[in-house]
């Protein structure tokens, strides 16, 4: 399988929860073509029933992630020329999640764990209160900002071998979000979230092997966020919940 004249050899996984396999397609090569362009071309020209997900096409919404040549990627911002290899282009649904159909993975577990890790904001004020001034230089704001640009794409979740081996583990994205919230002074959920992230599916399961940060398309470092949570949880345990 090689890049013939102007045609790309592409293998796309097709099937559903009961199984499936790779189908082969020849896709016209184009300048500045993304992996998502390739999938869209197949769907529009050859396989109208091919299921896949996308929305923004500019790396904002986090819905287009797939396995590309065995590695999780945001397909709308992955150029074919960057990943086209000796095996051509092999596209499959995201790892570590059940498949619904073809390239569409079932994200339910990913978001359920997000909720289990208390990855949601607990408001501490109402609309009638004055806005709380937040200094961009405050250390906890700096820590939160470093981890905040997550687009919920589940690339890190698909990259994490601990998620593969340990079905209870919340995974990097949920814990990374929890870390940003533990550093948010406007949030009122610190204690419940601390319990959640140190529970049996929580931060202590992470082996710090950094696949999440290697693959995060936004160059976030969930490993560091999780290390922060481990530190907070250990301190809070040792001080009887007083450390914050």
């Amino acid at each position, binding site marked *: 399988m090689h890049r013939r004249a102007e045609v790309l050899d592409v293998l796309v996984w097709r099937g559903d929860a009961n199984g499936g396999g790779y189908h082969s397609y020849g896709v016209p090569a184009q300048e500045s073509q993304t992996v998502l362009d390739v999938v869209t071309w197949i769907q529009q020209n050859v396989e109208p029933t091919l299921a896949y997900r996308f929305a923004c096409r500019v790396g904002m919404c986090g819905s287009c992630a797939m396995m590309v040549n065995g590695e999780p990627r945001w397909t709308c911002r992955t150029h074919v020329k960057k990943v086209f290899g000796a095996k051509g282009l092999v596209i499959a649904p995201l790892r570590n999640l059940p498949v619904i159909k073809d390239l569409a993975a079932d994200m339910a577990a990913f978001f359920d764990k997000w909720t289990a890790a208390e990855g949601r904001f607990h408001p501490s004020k109402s609309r009638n209160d004055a806005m709380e001034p937040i200094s961009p230089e405050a250390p906890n704001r700096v820590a939160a900002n470093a981890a905040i640009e997550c687009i919920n794409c589940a690339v890190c979740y698909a990259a994490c071998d601990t998620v593969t081996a340990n079905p*209870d583990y919340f995974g990097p994205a949920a814990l990374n979000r929890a870390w940003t919230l533990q550093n948010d002074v406007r949030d009122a959920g610190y204690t419940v979230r601390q319990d959640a992230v140190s529970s049996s*599916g929580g931060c*202590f*399961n992470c082996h710090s092997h950094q696949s999440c940060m290697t693959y995060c398309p936004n160059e976030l470092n969930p490993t560091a966020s999780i290390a922060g949570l481990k530190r907070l*949880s250990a301190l809070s345990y040792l001080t009887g919940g007083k450390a914050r």
Partner: protein
Amino acid sequence: MIGVRLYLAQRLSALVMAPLMIGHLAVMIYAVQNGLSAEEILSRTQGSLWWGAFYGLFVIAVSIHAAIGVRAVVYETAGLPERILNPLTWAIGVSLFVMGGRAVAGVVL
């Protein structure tokens, strides 16, 4: 699968183990320089409170550290439930402690 107590127990036991490990290796290399016999080693360790404490602490730390480590490996490879995992962790820890304790008793007493 692993909560804050097991995590801390594993980190703290590692903290204890690291210097003891280095001490063990250093003394071993130093002691066998001129070809040491078993009798010679035993003559120094037997009745020594210091070596008893050194290796006793080592055995305790290893038992804790290895039991929790193996627990994670077993869970991630075999996916056993906590109700089996917990007794298994204890069993590994206790057997390491007994075996190590016997070895320490053998050279010190």
